[in-house]
């Protein structure tokens, strides 16, 4: 019995070591940074100065490089305040689409825009998974205070308006939301503090466990302790805004947030993403996400906010190239998608600064 147990334990240990090597060299398991939260501002980004390779699926496809810069954002560039840089700067603010784990670091939109400007304009990217309009506002205010941009570009997606309501977004507990007080006034509600046990980060240093948790989506491993920025993301559904969906509370909160954006000291451009499936199936008018259309309507009367809808650009590009602009796994932009978006918005951005 003892010999059997010793043999079994030795086998398990050696198996673990073999798997560790295999999931680092043979099929490199997904690496992703640990989320952190600024204790002062409550803004969530990542542990700075780290890097790795993001893979997806059982066969570890993709293998996109990422780099968390010293300021805690996934970008090839380091960020400097106005006094330390020579170029005008455009701050790009968005969710996981902008964060860009589903494309290589060198294909990100900030790099592509920088190249389009031939190095004359700096583009700083502030993408954070699961964010929505209220969180974009907080990041915009912080970015203005830290880096003094010349233009703010906010990338909108599904649920960005509705998700900003306190209590509506149960899975977005690490973002700022807006609550209505009994006297009718509105206030920003800070996010729940990001916590994780000390054991989990150590556990996830194991390539095997990371592979099982992220590449194979085995949820029982480290459930809820470390937030996988790309878990459970599915193709958003397009729909048109209707009166029932956008109740008075949503209208009130969204107008409040837009007021705050309008009062920022720099001009703002909203860029609305578009649906994927209708475009790939050849529809000329693919529609748009309900929340994006809703925000667009509310922006019509606001002078300081410009609005760009990406859907027509995607349609045009698909008709010409028939190249998918999103990952095969989910609707995140791939490297090509980043270039499509960069080309679509570049001229408007330059004109705005």
């Amino acid at each position, binding site marked *: 019995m003892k010999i059997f147990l010793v043999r079994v334990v030795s086998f398990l240990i050696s198996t673990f070591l073999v*798997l560790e090597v295999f999931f680092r060299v043979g*099929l490199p398991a997904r690496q992703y940074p640990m989320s952190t939260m600024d204790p002062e501002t409550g803004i969530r980004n990542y542990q700075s100065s780290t890097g790795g390779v993001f893979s997806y699926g059982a*066969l570890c496809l993709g293998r996109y490089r990422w780099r968390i810069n010293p300021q805690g954002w996934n970008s090839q560039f380091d960020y400097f305040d106005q006094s330390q840089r020579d170029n005008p700067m455009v701050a790009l603010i968005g969710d996981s689409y902008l964060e860009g784990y589903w494309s290589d670091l060198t294909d990100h939109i900030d790099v592509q825009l920088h190249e389009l400007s031939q190095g004359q304009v700096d583009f700083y990217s502030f993408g954070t998974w699961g964010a929505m309009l209220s969180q974009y506002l907080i990041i915009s205010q912080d970015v203005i205070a830290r880096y003094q941009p010349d233009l703010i570009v906010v990338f909108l997606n599904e649920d960005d308006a509705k998700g900003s309501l306190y209590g509506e977004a149960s899975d977005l507990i690490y973002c700022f939301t807006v609550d209505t007080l009994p006297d009718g006034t509105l206030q920003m509600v800070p996010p729940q503090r990001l916590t994780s046990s000390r054991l989990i980060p150590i556990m996830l240093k194991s390539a095997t466990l990371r592979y099982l948790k992220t590449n194979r989506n085995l949820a029982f491993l480290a459930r809820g302790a470390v937030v996988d920025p790309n878990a459970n993301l599915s193709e958003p559904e397009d729909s048109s805004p209707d009166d029932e969906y956008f109740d008075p509370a949503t209208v009130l909160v969204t107008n409040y947030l837009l007021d705050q954006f309008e009062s920022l000291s720099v001009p703002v451009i909203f860029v609305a993403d578009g649906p994927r499936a209708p475009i790939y199936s050849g529809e000329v008018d693919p529609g748009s996400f309900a929340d994006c259309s809703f925000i667009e309507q509310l922006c019509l009367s606001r002078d300081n906010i410009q609005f760009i809808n990406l859907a027509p650009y995607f349609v045009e590009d698909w008709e010409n190239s028939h190249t998918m602009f999103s990952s095969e796994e989910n609707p995140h932009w791939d490297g090509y998608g980043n270039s499509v978006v960069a080309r679509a918005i570049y001229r408007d951005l330059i004109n705005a600064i």
Partner: protein
Amino acid sequence: MLFNSIPFAVFLPVVFLIYWMLTKRSLLLQNSFVLLASYAFYGWWNKHFLLLIIFSSLVDYLVGLGLASSEEQNRRRLLLGMSFAVNLGLLGFFKYYNFFISSFNELLGSIGLAADVHTLNLILPVGISYYTFKKLSYTIEIYKKTIEPTRNAVAFFSFIAFFPQLLAGPIDRASTLLPQFLKKRKFSDPLARDGLRQMLSGFVKKMVIADNLSPFVEDFFTNYAQYDGVSLVIGLFFLAIQLYCDFSGYSDIAIGCAKLFGFNLMQNFAFPYFSRDIAEFWRRWHISLSTWLRDYIYVPICGARPSRQKKALNIVITFTLCGLWHGANWTFVLWGFIHGLYFLPMTLAKRYPRFIGTAAKGKFLPSLREARGMIVTFAATSFAWVFFRSETIGDASGYLGRMFSHPFMHQNYSRFLPLLLASVLILFVEWLQRNKEHFLQIEHFPMVFRWIIYYSIIIVILVFGAFGSNEFIYTQF
């Protein structure tokens, strides 16, 4: 609790360690702990149905004692009848009540009479078909005086509820398994190691092959009208491999698991797709059931010196009942009936049995005659699987009809290629090991090679395995 689930991954090592470390001094402790673990294993699924097992086990325990204490034939018949009534009554009620009621209603409806007998919302207790047959074999054998009943209640209850085989067999007989519960088990290193190897072979068959084939098979049988004949033949091949890998995978895990606790269960599958005729197939497929049916249905109804015609008829009856055992649906009945028909030529021509022993013994390749036999047998059993898998007989004939009416439509077959290769690979590995109990019986290999094989299999399971705790097909029967 399913073998391919996280709770079982925790349950097994805990039970194993307690069993060998704390209970090895006494048989009573060993059996009590096995019983406790088995009830916990079953209760994890549904604790209410535990009472059913306990009740029916108690009945057979008492019937066994009653049979032993009586020589009076009428009383013995009565006791055996009581065992039959309780066991088959429970099985019939839970498994077949709705089937017979709806068939009865349909029959009355077809002759213009309105039937008003309602079906019930019944849950089929998992494993009832298996432990019922196990218990019946106990009372029948005591009645026939081929075994002695046990007075050791804990041993008997453990034998009935033994967790590795509780959900889907093998249906071990009391004559071979019960004595193992009456003797203190000593840890056997070679047996335990072989058990682990057999479990590993079962997991790879279930998680990598069967569970990956499952969505394809589901799609083929749901949307057969969209496929051409070539695709549907591939679907048939996938179904045959899925059923085999799912059930033989389960059996390997169950047998391997029992070995860890010092028990030897009977072999349930002996590489059936290398059978050279239908008789050999049934000596290699679900052996514990086919031998049970042979010994307790076919032989008794045949009587002494049956004519060829009577033999043939009884084979058809036995296989039709075999179909009914699998499920309360006419598709299963027809599947069994077809298998019964397959036996007719050889039974009527008195050519049974033709093939004994392993195919191509001592050679790498089979002879042309053997190869032809294997191909024909595989094709025949695969054809019958269509009825086994389809929801209705109409669906089955629709599938087969489509296969021949639209043989070739230039569909995209390349998406089936990875699983075709995987299926062929598992068959190839099994062919190499066809004279063994399972394909990972490689204890004669040098340790380095063995461990490399284990590592490779574990990597294959982690990378290609399906991790959804998918149910085993045969646990539904």
